[in-house]
């Protein structure tokens, strides 16, 4: 039985479970058909990421990470979902466009991608001081499944949420690998995310203004 992380303690197991919730919420995003539930799932996922940041802060005694945890909670769990929910309410479109392939097929594809990601990461010689190796593997799976989410869904809200969950996956990976990143840099990342959200929101609004829907099925004029 391979055991690449530190010796199992209750805190490590709890961190593993939270990381697992991040991946499971990603899968749930694949399935959900209401825009609002997608945003809620993203808020839940961000909450789990913040909790993981808290774990790292507790085990490594890095005080700055508590500040980061608070900022990321404020930003990703409250502000970003608020922005998107307001946009969706304004547009008054509730149900996202249908998927291109069936849910069961999507879940199977997502399972294959997750297994791939987990195996690739499992073979890396990574020893982390902050979290066990499992959250890194699950983060790789989250990143791959978020790509699937963007490819398979054809409406702008799902695609935007897919991108944001990609950032969540990278955040988890950075918690495992780079917990000591200087605080300035972490804040720059967060600020960047906020700006990206604003731009996404603007473009979604513009898109809706132009095409009247949130679906990307109309975006096929430019080819070749």
């Amino acid at each position, binding site marked *: 039985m391979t055991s690449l992380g530190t010796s199992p303690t209750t805190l490590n197991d709890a961190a593993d479970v939270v990381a697992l919730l991040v991946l499971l919420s990603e899968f749930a995003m694949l399935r959900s058909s209401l825009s609002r539930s997608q945003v809620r799932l993203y808020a839940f996922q961000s909450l789990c990421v913040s909790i993981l940041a808290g774990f790292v802060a507790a085990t490594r005694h890095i005080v700055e990470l508590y500040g980061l945890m608070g900022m990321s909670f404020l930003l990703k769990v409250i502000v970003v979902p608020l922005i998107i929910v307001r946009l969706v309410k304004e547009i008054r479109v509730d149900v996202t466009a249908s998927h291109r392939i069936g849910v069961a097929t999507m879940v199977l594809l997502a399972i294959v991608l997750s297994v791939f990601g987990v195996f690739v990461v499992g073979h890396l010689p990574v020893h982390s001081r902050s979290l066990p190796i499992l959250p890194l593997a699950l983060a790789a799976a989250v990143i791959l499944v978020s790509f699937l989410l963007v490819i398979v869904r054809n409406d702008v809200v799902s695609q935007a949420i897919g991108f944001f969950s990609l950032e969540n996956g990278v955040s988890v990976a950075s918690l495992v690998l780079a917990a*000591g990143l200087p605080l300035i840099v972490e804040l720059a990342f967060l600020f960047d995310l906020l700006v990206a959200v604003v731009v996404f929101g603007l473009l979604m609004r513009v898109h809706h203004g132009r095409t009247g829907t949130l679906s990307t099925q109309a975006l096929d004029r*430019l080819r070749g």
Partner: protein
Amino acid sequence: MGAVLIAILVLPLAASVVCLKAPMRAAKSVSLTSGVATFGLALVLVSSHHVATALAGWLRADALSVVFLLAVSFLYGTTTVFAIGYMRPAEGLAEARYSRRFFAGLNLFAWAMAMAPIVNGLALLWVAIEVTTVVSALLVAIGDTDGAVEAAWKYVLLASMGLGIALLATVFMYYAGSTVLGGSYEIFYPKLLGAAPHLPPEIVRLSFGLAVLGFGTKMGLVPVHTWLPDAHSEAPTPVSALLSGALLTVSFYAILRFYQVSVRAIGPAFPRDVLLVFGLASLVLAALYLASQRDLKRLLAYSSVEHMGILAIGMSFSAPIAMIGVLLHVLAHAAAKSTAFFGAGNVIRKFGSKDLDRIRGGVGALPWSGPMFLLAVLALSAMPPFGIFRSEFLIVEGGLSIGATALSAVLVVFVTCAFLGLSWFASQTMVTPTPDSVVRSEVSVWMAGSMVIGLVALVVLGVHPPAQLSGLLERAAAELGAHT
């Protein structure tokens, strides 16, 4: 020299803020001043042989940075000249609606692109490039046509996903560094390069691969280039010029920084293979797609993809001559592509359409910018005496010097393919007789004048690059590891 860096940090940002509130005339002159001044500051940095630092090391400009800063600032300057002529709200054009935001956005975009080469460290580099993505996405969408909206959404989604991968690459590289430098360290270049020989090889390999994939999305490498033709053709022309000439090169700069570390950590073999695969794919695909284009700006966009492929292939040769050729190509391509886009802007304004079937007799219709446009397109196809000929020659020479004869041959063949595509277009649209309905006149002095600057720069680069520039290029190549 540190003061120069701080000036570059402050100037375009200040210009952008001013343009938000200023009337049109003031915005234009402020932007022009800022653009020319930034280029002047970059020229100052060229002559210094020392590495300039500022802000306690957060800003740092070595030779490699200065090369790319030069390209970005040159484009900034010439684009502001062009934009003065392009944005003429008095004529009741569509651009009247968004002119104020346009100049603010233009300056901000240029600021972010100028920041990327001079910030110290991979993390801040990523932040700078992410800022360029969000700003340029807004600029692409500013025209608010169907095509612009579609292109902007595709661009921002794909580029952001790619940058997410690039962030993962940065995190992995940070982790690799932390095995040597301890859990918490500033990810400045000198430190990382110093620790490079001791970095764990598998992690560095993974990081480099992810970086090429991620930043390659922004650079326009096949197969993650799909946003590029749309964004470059639907954006307003000054923005297209900046995107093609400067943004792609800045993304290439990011890959080069990763290359710098990886070569010292795991040797040139793996980076060479990765760059070669992407570069060949880009070159081949772009050269083939060029022949079937119907849209003028899309044609130029695919030409950009082709040149990015050439850059990647040149880096994969990893011979000193090839590296100098690559860096010269960065400068020359910036000049040539911007001039070509400016010319395209002139032609489109004149004929009122981007469609190649509708444009006939460009040379006749535009007495100055027509022939200049033709020259720029030929320059893009590596015709002497322009700079691109010299740079591609150096790259092929480098390839032959390390024995990659087959690859060099392939490079030449596909460059010729691209030349055929471009020259077919040139013969169809530019040198045919002008229809009688078209008046023979220039659209704008500013728009034509910007092309002159670009062509002059190309001739200088091609015939006899100044000694200081050659010295700079050699120093930059040495920093990349050309002599190890």
